């Protein structure tokens, strides 16, 4: 049995914002870096700020600070809207949500479907994790469902820390009932007695809205439902990794743990636990109401349904767009209306743990495997376009510096390898003499890191080197 609640004083040192943060925070995230020339003074302040703040979820108006309050464009571009339609009218009240058909799916699931059949519908839909992992959600639920242990937990992962990503933020702010409804269906299906809703600290409005929603629902729903506990982060990117998140909830250092055993077998407090991303769960009400088959008809290949993508502020029309999987990247770029400054030099999709996409690869269609094939990945559907003002070497420097800063320090290659790379890349390019070492470290990161952060760090470096080697590597 794992010991819970380790001494707070030391555990808190893990987080960059457990104690105090400046009143006004400026973001050092990648989306803010590529658009730094839009508001130079913001970027300057971000660079000077200690501790750093990474990603406030305002990448549509970056460079951003905690005191700007613009809103992104939100549009539905798919044949059917699964999630987007709940986001079009700004912040919904419980009444608004019900008038849009909210909680019908929950009621149906509770009264007319067996637990096994709920899971079957989700399996049929071929919904996959939207937090970047892409693991089939139904399969995950089934794994927990089949456990012998009856004490089980559901965790809603609202720790959306990827640069350029703000989809979860607006789901939580505009329509917090949607992921909650999904979570309650999930908890019911897997037999979880308690739901933990973990939200990162950089999203204060999301925290407030989800808390409000949990409270307002209490009197509305007449069924006996699991308790929902809202937990607020303290500033750490790696907490988004499910095993780290579980450690965080147990009051331990949020370090990832090797898998297997997977959380579905041994998770929170050593009990079967399902960790689902906010957007993943937001698909559930649609799937239950309309059937898994109807959901499966959206999308293509092994990527089914719709995906909300978020475009960064360099686009003329930055915001959240609901697309069906299979849409070519170039269509997404043109939906964004081109760039405010310069031309698209490349895209960072699923940053920071995935490779870069060059314009000649824009025919690629949006999908998990399709993006993997070009060395990128779907991530949160976060798309950052950059122009020629941001040289690939410097982008790589920003990414590696972020990953080194956010590395938990548990495993050797990630703790020391990313630090070493950060040092080499600090000049914004790599010298030919350093190249062999950079490759060695990157390969070691990929082959021997404990979790996705270290592996991703290695992959990013290799991807940039394979696509921009000539500009990144400088002769002596």
């Amino acid at each position: 049995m794992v010991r819970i609640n380790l001494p707070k004083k030391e555990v808190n040192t893990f987080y960059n914002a457990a104690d105090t943060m400046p009143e006004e925070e400026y973001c050092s995230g990648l989306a803010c870096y590529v658009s730094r020339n839009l508001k130079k003074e913001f970027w300057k302040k971000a660079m000077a700020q200690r501790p750093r703040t990474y990603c406030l979820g305002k990448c549509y108006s970056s460079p951003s600070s905690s005191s700007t309050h613009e809103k992104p464009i939100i549009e539905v571009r798919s044949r059917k809207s699964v999630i987007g339609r709940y986001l079009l009218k700004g912040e919904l009240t419980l009444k608004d949500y019900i008038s849009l058909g909210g909680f019908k799916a929950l009621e149906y699931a509770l009264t007319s479907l067996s637990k096994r059949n709920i899971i079957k519908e989700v399996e049929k839909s071929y919904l996959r994790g939207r937090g970047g992992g892409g693991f089939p959600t139904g399969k995950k639920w089934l794994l927990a469902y089949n456990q012998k242990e009856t004490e089980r937990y559901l965790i809603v992962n609202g720790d959306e820390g990827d640069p350029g990503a703000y989809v979860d933020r607006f789901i939580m702010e505009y329509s917090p009932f949607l992921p909650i409804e999904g979570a309650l269906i999930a908890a019911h299906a897997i037999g979880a007695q308690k739901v933990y809703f973990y939200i990162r600290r950089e999203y204060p409005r999301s925290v407030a809205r989800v808390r409000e929603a949990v409270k307002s629902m209490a009197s509305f729903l007449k069924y006996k439902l699991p308790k929902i506990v809202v937990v607020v982060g303290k500033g750490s990117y790696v907490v988004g990794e499910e095993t780290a998140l579980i450690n965080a909830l147990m009051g331990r250092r949020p370090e990832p743990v090797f898998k297997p055993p997977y959380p579905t077998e041994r998770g929170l407090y050593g009990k079967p636990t399902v960790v689902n991303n906010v957007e993943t769960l937001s698909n559930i009400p649609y799937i239950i109401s309309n059937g898994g088959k109807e959901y499966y008809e959206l999308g293509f290949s092994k990527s089914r349904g719709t995906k909300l993508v978020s475009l960064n502020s360099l686009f003329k029309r930055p915001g959240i767009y609901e697309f069906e999987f299979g849409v070519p990247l170039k269509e997404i770029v043109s939906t964004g209306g081109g760039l405010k400054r310069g031309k698209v030099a490349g895209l960072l999709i699923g940053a920071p743990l995935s490779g870069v996409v060059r314009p000649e690869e824009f025919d690629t269609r949006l999908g998990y495997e399709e993006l993997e094939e070009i060395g990128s990945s779907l991530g949160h559907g976060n798309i950052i376009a950059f122009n020629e003002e941001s040289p690939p070497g410097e982008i790589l420097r920003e990414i590696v510096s972020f990953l080194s800063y956010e590395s938990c320090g548990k495993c050797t290659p990630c703790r020391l390898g990313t630090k070493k790379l950060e040092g080499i890349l600090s000049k914004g390019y790599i010298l030919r003499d350093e190249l062999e070492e950079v490759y060695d470290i990157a390969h070691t990161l990929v082959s021997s890191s404990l979790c996705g952060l270290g592996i991703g760090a290695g992959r990013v470096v290799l991807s940039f080197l394979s696509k921009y080697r000539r500009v990144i590597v400088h002769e002596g």
Partner: protein
Amino acid sequence: MKVKIDGVEYKFEKKISILNAARKVGIDIPTLCYDRRLSPNASCRLCLVKIKGKGIVTSCTTPIEDGMEVVTDDDEVRKAVRMNLRLLSSRYPKPALKKRFDQLLERYGLKEGGGAINREEIDDSHPFIYVDMNRCINCYNCVRVCEDIAGRLVWRITNRGAESRIIAEGGSLGRSSCISCRACVDVCPSGAIEDAMLVKYGTPERYYWSVCNMCSLACRVSVGVSRNKPVLIRPAGEKPLDAGGCLKGRYIWEDAFYSAERLHYPLIRKGGFLKKVDIKDAIGIASEKIREAVKEQGSEGFGLIVSGRLTLEEYYMLNILSREVIGSDNVWNSFTLCYQSILGEFMNSIGSIWPSIPYKEIGISDSIIVVGDVDSYHPALGDAIRELSLQGDARLLVVGTSPSTEGFMQNASDVYIKVEKERIGGLFNCINKRLVEEGYVDLDYLRGATENLGEYLGVINGEKSCENNAEKAVEMLGRGRNVSLIFEVEPWYESTKELIDTYILLNGRERRANIVPLFEECDLVDAFYILGGRSIDDLAQKAKERELKTLMIVGGNILRPAIRERLLSSLRDVDFIIEIVPTLDYFSRYYASLVFPGRTYLEKRGHYLSSDMTIRHAPSSLEGTEFQEFDLLKGILEALGYSVGSMEEVWNVVKEKIRKNVIAKNNSGKKYKFLF
């Protein structure tokens, strides 16, 4: 399960980790954060291997699978391991200590270590543990062993990423709540946490063999000496079963040897205070008091409590004193004081309280049951069992009772059953019932080998509530062909009966069962073996009737929790108490009238008997320790007019006696008897 490792196919019985599988067949995979006492952490990323079709994985966390092909060392693996080692060495000072990490650096031809030494990372505030975090490689072993095994949280991790550091609670180890168990020293692979003794006195100039008497295993150990002071205990062998490399063995001796309460001369109580007395006078007083007691009350006036682990030669001398010189049978030892009732159960059912096999033979078991906290009381054995399980030699069933044992054996077990102490008997009753019902029992054999099988089968019944657990256990035990039942017996145990029955039931023509009872509280079966002993009731009775005038206590540390109160109240009624003890303990301080300084095992010559009846020889000792308990007892015997020969002559007599005993035991041909 067939697994190909580096091109050679091996067969394994159990799904164990690739790391343990490789180590079992003699392939050493480098590790820093792996320790068989801890569950894997998978953080150092050195135990990398390549699985065909799957790529590089950490071998400590990946179990073997049938048909798996593993490559432990190819270019890609080697490169990654080397890079990780290089990264680790970048901040490490010059390798010098020959610790595991230094050895790995050498093996991979890395000499970079040359990180600057920061004074602030050195903490010498703790009397036994020297901390130099400049050498720390963040394996977290200290943090984990402190949390999981010592049950404390002294070591903590602060910050994250490349900034993460290990610090002691409150920033200074000396002021922390450290209990000096030094498990962290034991698991540290890089010398960041080190024995202060080694730092203070330097590495040993020479080593000598001795026998650790901190538990009944009596392991051979090697004692490192610097400036004629013992500074280090090393295991005698590599393999756990003859190692003695456990924490208890490594460190508990210091508590006696270097105690501030160490006695250097005899003390006599005068007017309530203990005063120094010359050794010759003290021997005179002792013999006089023994004589007086016998004069007043006859042979019943004198008694002997034997405690501590003594050498066989010493037991022999005490036997002469009590039985031959005085003619008294008044001998108690802490085993019989604690376990008299349980002793009866063993004797009635299987006719012995000794393990049915030497400990080493546990190694050929295919199934092992462990009940109770073997890891705390007999850690070297616990370690051996763990390794047998982890390396796939045996399946392990752990019945855990106290919270402290969780995570100990449990991590290495195949089946773990958690049960309250009072319910152990019930559980084994269920197991016994099921073993019979499912046909795992060789009834024909048992009919001949036991006295009362029919009767037992008539009454055996298990509770419903433990059936789930029993099912898991029976499934494992039933398949076993050589099953060892190892259990810590507590003085207040009420479940030995059922456990003994399980042992008897598991015997058969196709299956061999072994029983290894361990006596956690009063671990002194050797004293019992040589001297016999009486119960606490008997002692209390004699003391109350004021029959007992003079009592001699040899050893010390007999105030076991189970008998503490009764013993103390009884001994108030004894006129004169003589104690031979290495350090001034509670007893000598408040009860004894005459105290002789004893020797710790590090200073003793002689032979020890381990509780599995293995004789171990401690040949040499430190300088300046020529006068030993043997000589003291010889002096007392001579003062009483009885002369004995040299230690060597005594040993020859003892040896002959033990030989005869063993033959008698083997020829007894007693039938087993079920208890219910």
